[in-house]
């Protein structure tokens, strides 16, 4: 498959759009269907597509396994960290109203809080999906 010109060029053209779409799904999750989970899966799918077409080594040069594994853990840290941050600001755990820049409009904090925790979900899901894909694909390569 790696020698097919159409597949190679197609994957190269599509990948940036898939990545941009993932970011759109994340940041637009407040207004339309989607959110961190779906965005993480779409982002992982972009790299899975590149790995299928260009080979695992090429993608692992950009996204080394230690990086995606760290991502998987960092997402949980981001999510829990938002909770700790709101507690340090004197509100409940995950009480996003603490994040509002203007205390008279406390509900604005919800917006930031949701974006941040969804970012945590995105990072974890992306890291998990790519790590699992690497593990399977790596074993296939070793077995052949």
């Amino acid at each position, binding site marked *: 498959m790696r020698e097919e010109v159409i597949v190679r060029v197609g994957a190269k053209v599509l990948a940036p759009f898939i990545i941009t779409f993932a970011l759109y799904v994340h940041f637009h999750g407040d*207004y339309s269907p989607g959110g961190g989970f779906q965005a993480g899966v779409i982002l992982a799918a972009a790299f*899975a597509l590149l790995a299928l077409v260009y080979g695992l080594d090429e993608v692992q040069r950009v996204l080394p396994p230690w990086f995606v594994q760290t991502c998987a853990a960092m997402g949980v840290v981001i999510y829990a960290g938002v909770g700790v941050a709101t507690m340090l600001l004197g509100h409940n755990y995950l009480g*996003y109203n603490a994040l509002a820049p203007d205390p008279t409009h406390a*509900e604005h904090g919800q917006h930031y809080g949701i974006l941040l925790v*969804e970012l945590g*979900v995105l990072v974890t899901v992306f890291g*998990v999906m790519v790590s699992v894909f690497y*593990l*399977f694909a790596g074993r*296939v390569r070793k077995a052949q």
Partner: protein
Amino acid sequence: MLLTLLAATGLGLLRIRNLFAVVMLAGVYSLLSAGLFTVMDAVDVAFTEAAVGAGISTVLFLGALALCGHHESRPGHTPLLPLFVVCLTGIALVYGTMDMPPFGGADNPVHHHVADHYLEESYHEIGIPNVVTSVLASYRGYDTMGETTVVFAAAVGVMILLIGARTRRERPGGEEGDG
């Protein structure tokens, strides 16, 4: 219509022994379920089903297939006992639904516990139009954090299984699977 297609795909999944076709049919099944969720106005669920079920998991299944071969061997026992267990469970489940309120009724308890509050107040309390997101990330923020942790823990489990198996197999002389 979609349900008929779903049932047909499910039966096809059961009958076919070529695992490559099974993986593709599983992707079709996910896509059909996503269509069904869209028809029922659960767009967020449909989105997730299409991305995870039809997208990533098909790729992962293909990766697993490359490891374990394309053909499913015939089961060594008759299907009668499993069929009996499945029928019994199905009857028990159908019996259980007898006590449930009518499907889609507007005054069902599920629509009046906290759903009213979410639908009417979430725009003022949270300030974003997508109620699914505000329930998921704000009202139910703890649950979503638990889910994120579960996803992470599952990945750690997969890593331990796959990486552990690889190193153990390499130790007695680098013998690898037949792939």
